């Protein structure tokens, strides 16, 4: 019995008539129907009662704390900072704005020529001055460490440095960038990328540390 489809479209649209979210044509149809049919008008009153109760239920739900706002804007600020040109890039932007920079093609040739000079000089120096063998290649530590999981971490302002150091050491973590505005650091954890599940677990673990104000993934 309860599976019977409703017979009338008007009945289906009553809730949207109450909230005023119908097209003009539908609104006129519902208005006429409720005016001429007292039972439908009574059902519309039930809809109003339901809507009031649902609104009360929703508004009794607490509002969020400020934590998600802090995390969101820290993430945005860090992202923006990461995309801002630095060093030569910033200088290049300034020169370009003033029309003082050569064209892209001319610049590319100049850079290529400069690179060639540097390479030749480096070869001469390494062969004749230091006498180093070609297989003695220099590796930076960062090239190996870059495989870890990077998170944006905000530490509590009153957190003592030695506790932050202990935290980093406990988690095999390194600060790789920052602080950005709001005291946000990019911190690399471990030495390999994590699966979604591992990342969620790590974030939960880091979040539970008292000196961490918030933590979010870095993209």
């Amino acid at each position: 019995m309860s599976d019977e489809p409703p017979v009338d479209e008007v009945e289906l649209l009553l809730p949207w008539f109450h909230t005023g979210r119908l097209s003009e044509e539908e609104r006129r149809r519902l208005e006429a129907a409720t005016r001429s049919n007292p039972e439908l008008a009574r059902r519309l009153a039930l809809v109003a009662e339901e809507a009031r109760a649902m609104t009360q239920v929703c508004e009794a739900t607490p509002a969020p704390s400020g934590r998600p706002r802090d995390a969101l804007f820290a993430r945005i600020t860090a992202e923006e900072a990461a995309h801002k040109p630095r060093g030569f890039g910033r200088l290049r932007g300034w020169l370009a704005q003033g029309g003082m920079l050569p064209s892209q093609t001319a610049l590319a040739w100049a850079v290529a020529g400069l690179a060639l000079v540097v390479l030749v000089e480096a070869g001469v120096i390494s062969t004749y001055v230091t006498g180093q063998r070609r297989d003695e290649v220099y590796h930076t530590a960062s090239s190996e460490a870059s495989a870890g999981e990077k998170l944006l971490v905000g530490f509590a302002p009153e957190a003592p440095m030695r506790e932050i150091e202990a935290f980093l050491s406990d988690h095999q973590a390194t600060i790789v960038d920052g602080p950005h505005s709001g005291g946000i650091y990019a911190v690399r954890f471990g030495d390999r990328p994590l699966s979604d599940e591992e990342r969620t677990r790590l974030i939960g673990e880091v979040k539970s540390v008292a000196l961490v104000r918030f933590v979010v993934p870095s993209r």
Partner: protein
Amino acid sequence: MAQDTDEALIGRIARRDQSAMRAFYERHHVRVYRFMLRIVKNEATAEDLLSDVFYDVWRQADRFEGRSSVVTWALSIARFKALSAVRRRTETSLEPEIESELMDPADTPEIVAQKADKAEVLRACLSRLSEDHRQIVELVYYHEMSVQEVAEILQIPENTAKTRLFYARKRLSELLTDAGVDRGWP
């Protein structure tokens, strides 16, 4: 001074305007949070997801095509993230004990009926609707979404949206009858 419309704010957000993002967040974060909290039933999770939803808005604002309202778009993102979180939690069975009791009042509608007024019984019965039924009732009555918007957020045809709400209301009446409140409908 007149407030920017949501669409105008999204346009500014697409141009990386953080003040527009703050205004958009302030305008909508409570309703998005409440919507997700009712799905995930955990305040900390809902707060994490809230930050993620608005971060997606920030990152995808330049791709917003305006085919739906901004709020519909944000609630669609919110629903997707909340359901994914519930699915992940179900798969890993994480901390079921932290679910908020807020969503599941200790008193049954029958007990509430014995000691309270009809409005309170109605609120108790609303909280006892199935997830699908409660979501559509909330979208229509609290978020005041149109048929099309509800259909888009829930990813169902418009006719299904209409009949689902009808059956949700019918179920609500049954719960009320069980609690001793006869509305004479359906």
